């Protein structure tokens, strides 16, 4: 009786994992490099007023922003809007979402007249929930 001596060698299947680390680090670096924060791209000079009663705003949805820079220019959604026409920008948003909270990022040295016009515009567009953005302190 002869025994076949051909050795059967079993192959274990393998997935090369040596480069997964490289892939992952590449992802980290890619997102680190490409992330751009929005406020900086607008390049507005806004110093928020200081207030001791500043609260953190917990909601993250239903928020829209109005920016007013040191020259009294009003920005909504990255575009310059005349202050008398704020409601034309905000009204459609309120129609879409009645729970909308408008955050007013207004430079602290602005004359109140400008703020008054914006508040009036907001009332007109029925955006009643507002927040004056402020910094802690004062």
């Amino acid at each position, binding site marked *: 009786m002869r025994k076949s001596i051909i050795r059967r060698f079993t192959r274990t299947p393998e997935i090369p994992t040596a480069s997964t680390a490289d892939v992952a680090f590449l*992802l980290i670096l890619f997102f680190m490099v490409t992330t751009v924060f929005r406020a900086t791209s607008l390049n507005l000079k806004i110093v928020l007023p200081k207030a001791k009663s500043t609260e953190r705003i917990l909601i993250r949805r239903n928020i829209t922003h109005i920016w007013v820079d040191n020259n009294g220019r009003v920005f909504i959604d990255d575009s310059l809007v005349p202050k008398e026409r704020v409601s034309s920008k905000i009204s459609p948003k309120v129609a879409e979402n009645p729970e909308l909270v408008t955050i007013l990022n207004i430079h602290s040295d602005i004359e109140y007249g400008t703020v008054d016009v914006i508040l009036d515009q907001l009332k007109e567009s029925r955006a009643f929930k507002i927040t004056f953005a402020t910094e802690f302190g004062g």
Partner: protein
Amino acid sequence: MELRQKKKYQAAIPTASMGDIAFLIIIFFMTTTVFTREKGIKMLLPEKTETETKVKPENVVSILINPEGALKLRATGYDGIDISPQQYSEVRRIVEEKLLERDTLLVVSLKTSKDAQYQAMIGVLDQIKLAKVVTQDGRELKANKISLIPTSEE
């Protein structure tokens, strides 16, 4: 003759788990990243109506801010007292006093001059928001009725 074979150790750093570590870092930072939270003072604007809401004069603390940031405060017992920009905390004291007296009926009306600085208005609003008293029956009272009078209104 000795024929002992010298064993050769090959130095190696195990890299199999590097990928796991890297992904762990990605996921850790993804979940812990909090984008700058908004901070501010909340307000609720009134509806634009023609009908006037009548408030009894004794329930009102009325504050006027002039272009220099100085205040004129009127309330029962305070007949148009002047408050300089350095004394804004006086507003809080008076509002607290009135809160105890008038309870939830108190209305604080804030009228700011067109030429006043926004910071002055926020400074006064801050003081009104800071006012907080505890009544004798243990309720916490805050000045919730704050009305920002439009500058066009006389």
